[in-house]
């Protein structure tokens, strides 16, 4: 009872309402994108479960979360290792852990746990030393590498980015970033030639000229550009998109769901969706800045920018300005683990915002 009261009082309605609006908008599009399949119903169920998880996460006091960071991180590493060993294979990649009829994608959990763990690590120190950043980088790279070898380039990059954001907000020196950029520029030819697989290179090339291979690497980009562009100002109407409904659009209920949205609701609908995403983001950014606890502030900043970054990358990919990497659109794309993780993220944000502990001293 006390827990329920606490969880209700910890709800930040100004975050929950825009987030719920975003989820609702996603459901509308998913209903159209997944006509004749069971995805919509399952997504609704995941949404309800997500709300419950969000309430629980919000009810857990932030100081407990800080204590949970390390066990969560170690648990995540175990899960990721388990995926590589026992994961179920689909499309030449092991990404899923199956528990009976339920399958979990641990790499999605990493998007929440990695920023949390890194932020908590930084909060142990009052002064920044360069070695802290290296340790933090290690904390990020280990799970990211485990996801990369699955292989799941998109999610690995996203985990790396979320961790890097925390490192950035923790005060990575500017000169160091400049140096890193220089090094990155110098090793990129090696990465291009030795690390990236051919299909990954094709996706990058196909951005500049998708018509080089219109039925291969360029197909996704071409078809999603057509879907978005043919939406026009007002869109073709709900469930009226020819690109989506006739199956020309690949992966329309997951990574390319925004193309369905843009085709059916047009420029106006797209801008409205972007506005809702921005409101959720700005609210979280405000919470990050306003949090009383430094670790909370850092965690919140990492989570909120990771949320925005993934949204922008997905939208950029669907709009044909970024290469096709397998990243879903947060809150909109179908995907249980991703959705639950996002709701948990909002819960953690609320816990951070609710944290009223007086500053340790004075």
């Amino acid at each position: 009872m006390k827990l329920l009261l606490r969880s209700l009082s910890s709800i930040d309605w100004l975050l929950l309402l825009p987030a719920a609006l975003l989820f609702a908008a996603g459901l509308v599009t998913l209903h159209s994108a997944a006509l004749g399949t069971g995805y919509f119903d399952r997504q609704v169920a995941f949404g309800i479960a997500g709300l419950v998880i969000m309430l629980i996460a919000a009810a857990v006091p932030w100081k407990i979360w800080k204590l949970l960071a390390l066990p969560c991180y170690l648990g995540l590493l175990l899960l990721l290792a388990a995926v590589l060993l026992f994961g179920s294979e689909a499309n030449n990649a092991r990404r899923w852990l199956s528990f009976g009829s339920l399958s979990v994608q641990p790499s999605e959990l990493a998007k929440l746990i990695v920023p949390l763990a890194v932020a908590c690590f930084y909060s142990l120190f009052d002064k920044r030393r360069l070695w802290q950043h290296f340790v933090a980088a290690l904390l990020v790279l280990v799970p990211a590498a485990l996801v990369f070898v699955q292989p799941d380039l998109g999610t690995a990059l996203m985990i790396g980015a979320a961790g890097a954001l925390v490192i950035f907000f923790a005060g990575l020196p500017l000169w160091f970033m400049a140096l890193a950029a220089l090094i990155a520029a110098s090793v990129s030819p090696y990465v291009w030639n030795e690390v990236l697989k051919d299909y990954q290179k094709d996706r990058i090339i196909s951005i500049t000229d998708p018509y080089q291979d219109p039925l291969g690497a360029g197909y996704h980009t071409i078809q999603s550009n057509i879907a978005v562009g043919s939406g026009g100002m007002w869109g073709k109407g709900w469930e009226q998109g020819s690109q989506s409904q006739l199956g020309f659009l690949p992966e329309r209920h997951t990574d390319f769901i925004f193309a369905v949205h843009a085709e059916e609701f047009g420029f106006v609908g797209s801008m409205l969706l972007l506005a809702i995403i921005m409101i959720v983001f700005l609210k979280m950014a405000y919470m990050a800045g306003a949090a009383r606890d430094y670790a909370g502030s850092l965690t919140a900043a990492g989570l909120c920018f990771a949320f925005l970054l993934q949204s922008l990358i997905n939208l950029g990919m669907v709009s044909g300005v970024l290469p096709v990497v397998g990243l879903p659109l947060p809150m909109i794309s179908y995907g249980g683990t991703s959705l639950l993780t996002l709701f948990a993220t909002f819960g953690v944000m609320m816990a951070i915002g609710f944290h009223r502990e007086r500053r340790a001293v004075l």
Partner: protein
Amino acid sequence: MFSRIADVQRLRMVLIGRIWFGVVLALALGALLGWRWYYLQIERFSHFSERASDNQITVQPLAPVRGRIFDRAGRVFADNDTRYFVKISSDYADSVMPHLPAIRTRLEIDDDGESRLAAAAGKSVYSGDIVVRDYMSENEVVRFVAIQHVYPQAVLDAGMYRTYPEGDTAAHVIGHVARISADDKKRLRERGLLRRYAGSQFIGRRGIEARFETRMHGLPGLREAFIDAHGRVLKAEQRAAPQSGEDMWLTIDLELQQLAEGLLAGREGAIVALDPHDGAIIALASSPRFDPNEFIGGVSQQRWDELNSKESGTPMVHRATYGQYAPGSTIKPFLALAALANGWRDADYSYLSKGFFALTPSVVFEDWKEGGHGPTDITKSIVRSVNSFYYQLAHDVGVDAMHDALAVFGFGQPAAADIGGGRTGVLPTELWKQETFGEQWYPGDTIPIGVGQGYLEVTPIQMARAMAVIANGGRLVQPYLATGIGNDRIMPPARGERLFESEHIRIITEALAQVTEPGGTAYSRVGKDSTYPIAGKTGTAQVTRLRFADGERVKNEELPEHLRDHAWFVGFAPAYNPRIVVATLVEHGGSGGRTAGPIARSVMDDYLLRVLGMRFVEEEGQDAQAASL
């Protein structure tokens, strides 16, 4: 203590500063995204809108039904039949591949289909339907239908295909269709006809199928189809119906053709039967033959080599129009007629045959009868086939004069009007030898021309055409096959001018008629027991010139088969009111009268008595009158 607070405060300040920076950057990136959408959705809206509808609507061609080919009585040479096949959409290739061994127990899978299926299994993009089994037998269709529910991805469909119900009958004449090749496409594009072949898989190759391709193929129809990304047709509207190709009617009599081919069975040779008055080809047999049905799906290189090998008798060669042979004695009536017409010899002329013709004391050409035939006029020279008479004639007039005289009968030019020409044969002149061999013409080259040997070569159809000149009273006709296409009647090619005086024709005709009468060279094999008079001439074309061993002449029967003489019989019937000209050539058949003669007689019997239904009243002498029912 304060320093620690100051440190934490400093970190907070850095954090908040960087959050501000991030927010500004995020808003800027959001604005860029909005700008991109403005570009896609507002500026380029019409372009993408068009592309979206292009995606959904395809214009699909509907292949026309090919025209059929009939004989003169409407019997079918070439028809269209339903073919059943099983196809699998490339989308399902992935899921079907593992079940292939199981499917194979109930349905034979074509190798080609399997490899295309395997290729499609690796790709995620739709690439059309893959036919995994074509030309299924009824049995197979029934067996497949029984298991279809287990493999719903495999769809049974039907289409049209060309069939030649009579198999190899008249194969060279009819030709066949084959899959459209890259070369065909190039040729069609150059002629601006490629669009007519949208949706078609086959094109006429060889014979009538190739010659009348343009009209027999027909015009494709169009339908507009709304499709999804898997190529499934959601809704289709027919915009234009396909126009069937036009049917063809030929002059050939299918039954007579089959009879003629049967007479040649097991031999290599040709039979040409013409209507002497207009050149209509009644039968055009060549042996051996090929089965055009074999060519529809394409033949393997190995099979193709086999079909062109000497061992199998080169069945691809149309001997009736492309086989070139020395005419032998069958050339004599034409030289005789020319001799009368040109005044080289007159009706009263008599030559004394002593058994040989000596060009010089050492270069001697012999008669076939030792000791010679005695006094010989034109009639006897034909009836008894007196060689020395023609040696003398050839020697007197020379090769160039003979060239001009024989050219009038159509020798030296392709004979057929509408079956792709045929070969010209060889009608030599002095100049021809100079140009061909770089050697001058010797007097010794001239003499054998008189008996149809030496450099002279003719095709069987040229022979029949030349004989038609005598049969029809002196006009050169053009052999033809097509009498009608679609609703158009094709008029026979125009006949030539009358070339010879009827008196001269009468003399030669009577001589030819006597050939098949008692005392003639073809009585026992051709004329005997005939209810109607037959005019004709036997011929024996030497294959090799070396005919002497131990100073003795070797008998033809004792030679190995490939060195034996070719046998000719060329004639027409009834002799005085001719309705059919027949030229028969049997390769290595030995003596003309013995092998070629009976074949020609059978063809004449069948045509006159069965096809035309003529009945003849037996009378004394040569004046049997034809009375048709």
